[in-house]
């Protein structure tokens, strides 16, 4: 067992972990943070996307044992902080979550793009999300929700305040 001390969603966590434990099982099984999903478990699907030291990673391709001193933020963390309240509301408004399995990873990856700012095109949004698989939506609604969030933040100076659940305007 390897002793690790790290910060998860703002809280200090001290645990002993088996080296074979990947970050997602550590979060889900050891800490009970089940918002991050374990999908393919070999780095392809993106359902396990979380932040480590401010950057998104595949949680299934990171050893928990290697994270002594790290800062981890999960979907629970960015939901509670309000960072993605508007993005989440737009996912609801656009019906961008169907079965919901990919959604936490999609939100984490889209939040990474939003954190970089700018005004990405739909093609750039698609490219940034290209490592996150969705088997329900056909992606259009997801791109719509992310694009809406960028447009609203541009208009309101970057605030992440939730716009409410009303329809967010004309489709395309």
């Amino acid at each position: 067992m390897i002793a690790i001390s790290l910060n998860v969603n703002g809280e200090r966590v001290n645990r002993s972990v088996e080296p074979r434990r990947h970050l997602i099982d550590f979060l889900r099984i050891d800490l009970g943070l089940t918002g991050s999903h374990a999908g393919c478990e070999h780095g392809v699907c993106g359902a396990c996307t979380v932040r480590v030291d401010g950057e998104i990673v595949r949680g299934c391709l990171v050893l928990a044992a290697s994270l002594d001193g790290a800062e981890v933020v999960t979907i629970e963390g960015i939901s509670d902080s309000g960072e993605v309240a508007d993005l989440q509301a737009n996912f609801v408004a656009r019906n961008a979550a169907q079965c919901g399995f990919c959604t936490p990873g999609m939100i984490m990856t889209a939040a990474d793009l939003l954190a970089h700012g700018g005004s990405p095109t739909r093609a750039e949004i698609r490219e940034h999300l290209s490592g996150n698989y969705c088997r329900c939506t056909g992606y259009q609604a997801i791109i719509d929700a992310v694009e809406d969030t960028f447009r609203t933040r541009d208009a309101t100076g970057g605030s992440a305040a939730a716009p409410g659940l009303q329809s967010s305007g004309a489709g395309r």
Partner: protein
Amino acid sequence: MKWPAIGYLRASSLDGLWAAMAEHGAAAQIMAGGQTLLATLAFRLSEPSLLLDITHIPELRGITVAGNTLRIGALTRHVELGRDALVRAHAPLLSEAVPLIAHPAIRNRGTIGGSLAYADPAAELPACIVALDAVVVAVSAGGERRIPARDFFTDLLQTALVPGEIIAAVEIPLLERVTAIQEIARRSGDYAMAGLAAALRIEAGRVVCPRLVYFGVGNGPVLAARAAAALEGAALDAASIAAAQAALAEDLDPQQDLHGPPEMKRHLARVLTARVLGGFLPTRELAA
């Protein structure tokens, strides 16, 4: 599936690494970003008894220019390579390659040293460093050894590294040249079905020292000697590009893989040749 039972050790210096390697021998597997290695554990394609984490070894970090050489530390992550100003100024081929490598979450962890050591024949960075005529700096307890990139990739997933050696850095000579990389993949972020990294100079309207390196079409990066001979000294135009495409028939011997038969790979290589070389033309030749 879940990873097998395994040990983990973090080295914090090269001396610490050599001591750990001496103690654990061949049972220990060096781990950098882990973005390939940890997936192979899930598939049981590898089952080492100990992972030796080298990501906290400061000697393997950093990007510097000294004299006529750009030195890129082995632990440089793809995301760092893509945004580094020295790399963009002196080896823009690498900056251009980064967006082609997997996806943002993978690029945040994966390293140049790991990519080169794994030597996937469809990976971008091995082809780039051969095109740039770079040198791989290997280091072991006995000291450093410099290996020309063209000699580094010896066979499918095989390199010239010997047991006890790791990659410390890549050194790229600073030369005036134009470079480009393009690939064809089924989906953005997938390994390429075929790709081409190219570097050449144009002096007095003539091509000098062209290096065309194809990936995804062999057991490693393929430096196309006959296509280069067809271009050397010629004006870069439709005729010389066609000659290079024709010469590829002798340079490439692609095997059938998941993507398709050898003839399809040859076709993709010819298409990429025209796209990459065409991109070096000062003005596009437009049909009348």
